[in-house]
């Protein structure tokens, strides 16, 4: 599975960092502790940005290369936080033929967020999904689960204006 590095600025709080350091301390000296540490770190931050991986690396003495290798291997570990507004555009066949490719391109262009990543302010994430099973409404997109159907490229600006 391909994973992309995040462009979202890291906003970890001192409380989160203290919690993370406590987790690392708890697992100190334990064999094979890296998976539990990463799992608990993701529980604290919601994802595993490089900054968090760096703290873990410095504290445990395990190289960044190895930690990143683990974080990118398992599908459960997220390198990107979900945006405040999670946008998913259906790229199933029916939607695609009706121009959802154009729609997702337009969204990506207007928000300046590459498909499959999150905007640098953490507000929007843009994702291409498989068929949502709403072919009668094609092309379809969802924003935080809310469904918009029969989209045209020209609708994008109006819909995005609702989510600011």
């Amino acid at each position, binding site marked *: 599975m391909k994973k992309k590095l995040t462009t979202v600025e890291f906003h970890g709080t001192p409380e989160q960092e203290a919690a993370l350091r406590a987790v690392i301390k708890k697992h100190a000296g334990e064999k094979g502790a890296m998976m539990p540490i990463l799992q608990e770190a993701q529980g604290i931050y919601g994802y595993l940005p490089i900054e968090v991986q760096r703290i873990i690396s410095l504290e445990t003495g395990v190289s960044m290369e190895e930690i990143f290798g683990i974080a990118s291997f398992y599908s459960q570990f997220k390198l990107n936080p979900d945006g405040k507004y999670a946008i998913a555009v259906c790229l199933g*066949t*029916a939607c695609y033929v009706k121009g959802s490719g154009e729609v997702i391109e337009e969204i990506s262009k207007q928000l300046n967020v590459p498909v499959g990543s999150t905007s640098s302010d953490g507000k929007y994430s843009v994702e291409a999904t498989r068929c949502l099973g709403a072919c009668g409404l*094609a092309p379809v997109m969802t924003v935080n689960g809310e469904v918009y159907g029969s989209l045209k490229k020209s609708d994008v600006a109006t819909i995005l204006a609702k989510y600011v």
Partner: protein
Amino acid sequence: MAKTSLYDTTFCKTQQRLALRNCGVIDPENIDEYIAMDGYRALGKVLTEMTPDQVIDTILASGLRGRGGAGFPTGMKWKFASGNRGNVQKYVCCNADEGDPGAFMDRSVLEGDPHAVVEAMAIAGYAIGADQGYIYVRAEYPIAVKRLEIAIDQAKKYGLLGKDIFGTGFNFDLSIRLGAGAFVCGEETALMTSIEGKRGEPRPRPPFPAVKGLFEKPTILNNVETYANIPQIILNGAEWFSSIGTEKSKGTKVFALGGKITNTGLVEVPMGTSLRHIIEDIGGGIPNGKKFKAAQTGGPSGGCIPAEHLDTPIDYDNLLAIGSMMGSGGLIVMDEDNCMVDIARFFLDFTVDESCGKCTPCRVGTKRLLEILDKIISGNGEMEDLDKLEELANYIKSASLCGLGQTAPNPVLSTLRYFRDEYIAHIVDKKCPAGVCKKLIRYEIDPEKCIGCGMCAKKCPASTIQKTDYTAPGHKLPSMKIEQANCVKCGACMDTCKFGAISKH
């Protein structure tokens, strides 16, 4: 009128519950209820009455084979790891990383009878001389994780785990490790690499885990369902267990029955039961009067079994002989509406996504297989593609590093073996007989039945349905027609039509 109990139904009556005996019967969060069902008596028996070698001999004599898929004799595994007891650190692991889509028997055991696994692992620890165990369980099973945690805590409080168990000087401790969503971690060496906190990639064998396993120490790894059988074998004896099942496969097997079947759910039957009995009697047959086409066992590593083999008694060896495998016990029934080429593609898509990428035959080979299947289902296949599929599949099987790659081509090979006519229909006639493969089907409107209401045209996402100039006798409006060139085959028109005028070909 006599009341019929649930246990009198055909679904329950012909099942024999060993691994699942406590599931749904006891409160899994209460150790006393497990103890009331003879729980931890087997552990007491081995610690106070048996030598470690006697335990291994009992498991060997019982004929128990691994329930995770490959069916390796459990006692042999234990024996290989039993040397040098007390002088080296050893580990006992439990594979609870049930990754097969559609299989959930391990989850049921962990959620319904977690103490059985805890007890069996302690018995295994005593047999091989290990004092530490790890249960590797999927993070997607939160209830199973919680109940395991409770079970381990309770067992520690009762002195059934920890130091000096039953006052015999035997020490054994258990830890839970969570998976993180990687199918390959069901493979034993990959699972151990993952417990070590690394990328879950497999490593070459030998050295086998019994020699060099977790943290490079001798290790045994068994599946949840395998462990669930152990305490009863100790209590009832090897002879009792080996009296159930077939000559080479002893005991029972749990199947997760699903797909196009009336009764879905977990089914535990003696080895040697025929597929027909499971599907027709216990499963209640195929709903909606449809015809049986195939039963898929073994998930992405297994194969599809056609109607002609329904009477085969199921055990490890018979399933291998007919091109499938036991696997963890997923049993998906398919009817005439399923396209076997599409099913093969579905599983390949899964293995391509889950291949860890370490070895080339699996990483590149499965991808190439998928590309050929894509070519066939899009109507561009040529007859020589079938030979290419077979040749490549056999290379992948023989050259891949681990079980994932070695079995990944099975869905393709077994469908080629039994449903070659469907492949040929896709290639030569450019047709999908089951009407599944979108590029090969067409929707058509019968002008005699169409009343021209236009509902289909309104629903059509591609705006490809237009009025014709033909009005059928007795109708007021001209009938509609689908422009095939732009049709996206979504089927919305057929679902909308109230007059049955639209059909799929």
